[in-house]
């Protein structure tokens, strides 16, 4: 089985694989944006320590944003 056959078989209901991966990326990016806003609000509103809040948010954005960028690049490459 060639690589194109495998990727073609992934295409559900005759949707091209590029469309599926794009939808996947936009879906995850949307979930990420909403989740980040909720997380940011909760830490700023309910935390007891500004230092822990800052550290948590820095750690969160510095680990997740690069992953989102990589995923976006891979979507573009597909």
């Amino acid at each position, binding site marked *: 089985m060639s690589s194109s056959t495998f990727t073609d078989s992934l295409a559900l209901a005759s949707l091209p694989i590029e469309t599926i991966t794009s939808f996947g990326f936009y879906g995850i990016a949307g979930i990420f944006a909403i989740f980040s806003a909720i997380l940011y609000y909760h830490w700023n509103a309910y935390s007891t320590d500004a230092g822990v809040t800052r550290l*948590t948010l820095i750690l969160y954005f510095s680990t997740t944003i690069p992953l989102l960028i990589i995923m976006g690049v891979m979507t573009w490459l597909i």
Partner: protein
Amino acid sequence: MLFEKIQLEAGEEVLKVVRKHWFVILSELFGTFLMLLFPFFLLVLFALLPNEWNVLDLHPEKYIIFITYAITGWLLLTLMTAFTIWTHYYLDLWIVTDRRIIVVDQITFFNRKISSFRLERMQDIKVSVVGIIATFLNFGTLRAQTASAAESNFKSTGLPDPRGLQSLIQGAMDRRLTSLGDLPIAPD
């Protein structure tokens, strides 16, 4: 920040802020750590498969872009889960002051319960430490009963040093009752 929202009374002093024991968060985060490793485990498994078993011709090197796409998506969702666990752990707390106990229960992001119990209405505090790990690491459940309706009773699991917390609350209760004139001051 939280203390601005709670609005402590004039002269009210925070005696202790208590969160669940570190073992509780560690055991919850262990699951997400396994989730993080899962795609890499699958990759290793596929790489080690004998060729005759690999009927779909799934060789990771051929689909590097798809695999990177899937793994980054998976890692992103896993990290979001881990930060949710950390947020619930950190925002879930007990604040013991010299006048009351404030219990903040962060159940989900949109389900947050804040209860306040005045020390002078507290009647009974029970501590239970169950299990080998809880005994060795000194964490357990604390139940407190108030003089008001049964719904006002509260309970929290996985609290560190529950006996120390119990004695802190009881000491604060005694001082509160003494200051209100309900308890005779013990002679020295």
